[in-house]
């Protein structure tokens, strides 16, 4: 159990580092997919199978597919790799690295002081419990999220809508 966890965690960390440092966008995205899959395995190990399944279906299976879809359409060649190399100078990531290092120190301090329970007792949370929690305690958040998504949908529809006037013009021209 412990060994499997550390192995998966190592895979997640290494693949995430590769996401940051890889020059080729599609290869970096593939590492990101690997990282998401590793996180899903960790979820499963800690008794949250529904979260694991949703992680794979929604993040790895839908959102990442759409991102790769867009990158594929842009069809960048090797020139972008060179460009990326020029952008990824050490000076640009010194700031973020220091700030994240501070966060890491905080995390280590919290875990070592025992404020976050690091005991191995965790309970299994099945799909049913998640559903009950979503539609009782968190129902307001669910409704708000659905409204936000609906607004996004309406916006996308408006942007992609065919203009009636243009069609009329082209008919007249013919």
């Amino acid at each position: 159990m412990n060994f499997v966890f550390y192995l998966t965690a190592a895979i997640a960390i290494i693949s995430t580092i590769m996401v940051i440092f890889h020059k080729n966008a599609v290869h970096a995205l593939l590492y990101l997919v690997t990282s998401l899959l590793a996180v899903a395995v960790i979820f499963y190990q800690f008794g949250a199978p529904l979260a694991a399944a949703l992680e794979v279906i929604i993040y790895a299976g839908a959102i990442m597919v759409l991102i790769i879809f867009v990158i594929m359409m842009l069809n960048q060649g090797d020139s972008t790799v060179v460009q990326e190399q020029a952008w990824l100078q050490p000076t640009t990531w010194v700031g973020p690295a220091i700030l994240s290092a501070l966060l890491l120190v905080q995390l280590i301090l919290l875990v070592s002081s025992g404020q976050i329970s690091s005991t191995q007792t965790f309970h299994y949370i099945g799909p049913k419990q998640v559903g009950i929690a979503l539609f009782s305690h968190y129902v307001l958040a669910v409704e708000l999220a659905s409204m936000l998504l609906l607004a996004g949908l309406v916006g996308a529809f408006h942007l992609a809508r065919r203009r009636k006037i243009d069609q009329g013009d082209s008919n007249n021209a013919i």
Partner: protein
Amino acid sequence: MSTPIWITLLNIFGVLIATVILAAVLTWGERRLLGFWQDRPGPNRVGPFGTLQVLADMIKLFFKEDFIPRFADIPVFVLAPTVVMATMLIAFAVVPMSPGIGVVDLNIGLLFVLAMSSIAVYSIILGGYASNNKYALLGGLRAAAQTVSYEVFMGLSLMGVVMMSGSFNLRDIVNAQAERWFIMPQFVGFIVFFIAGIAESRRTPFDLPEAEHELTAGFHTEYSGMKFGMFFVGEYLAVILISALITTLFLGGWHGPWLPPIIWFCLKTAILVAIFILLRASLPRPRYDQLMKFGWKVMLPLALINLLVTAGVLLWTA
């Protein structure tokens, strides 16, 4: 673990080898059946009734030059065909074939299958991208759009079954069908899932990502040898997987009179595979925009209405 280790191993390798062999044999079976329905012989020269055609094809594929175009993105190009085969074979692990056969009894079995089928999309997208070829790119784009949109109501159409059986576990779903198969109360769900399944496995009439007459071979234009073979076998694995899932979810799984459970399961799956092939033999391809319009404007509302009605009826009778 109460079951001895050798039974588990037998289960794992039995299911694995059986599905791979079935997928390989199906490459011959499909051509024979297509020939039968289209009034022509089909491959009938190698061995009795042409049954050794599979072997001949495999020898040919293995000895072909495994060509990788120099303009391709090589690591991704090599990775792409393995994804579809791996995910499809992993998905078979949760399908319960009979009371004693089935690799794992996963609590979220149904979601697991959906997750694997959504990962399988990468195979086509990456294949199309890595080939660095216009036809392959167009095929990959179409495949991505098609599978992502058909996946939406593929999942939704199954929720009726989940509500009626009260579980994501495929074994529980089969057990819930001991008296009545779910195809009767969930007929709409069955139809939607069947159509979405055809689109997910990219079979004719929904094989626009590889439509020969406009895209040569779509996303696998640049592939040859065994890499092409993996795409090919992956497609047949998908067909068998979808058929096995329909059997499990809607046709009562291994339940049936007189015959032993595993025979019933195989029989139902085989009939569904034959229907897949019959559809290929008889239906023309729609246009791409028709395909997308059909998906979003007909299938999605149908799946949602089915969901709503099922929920209403269940609450009413509960």
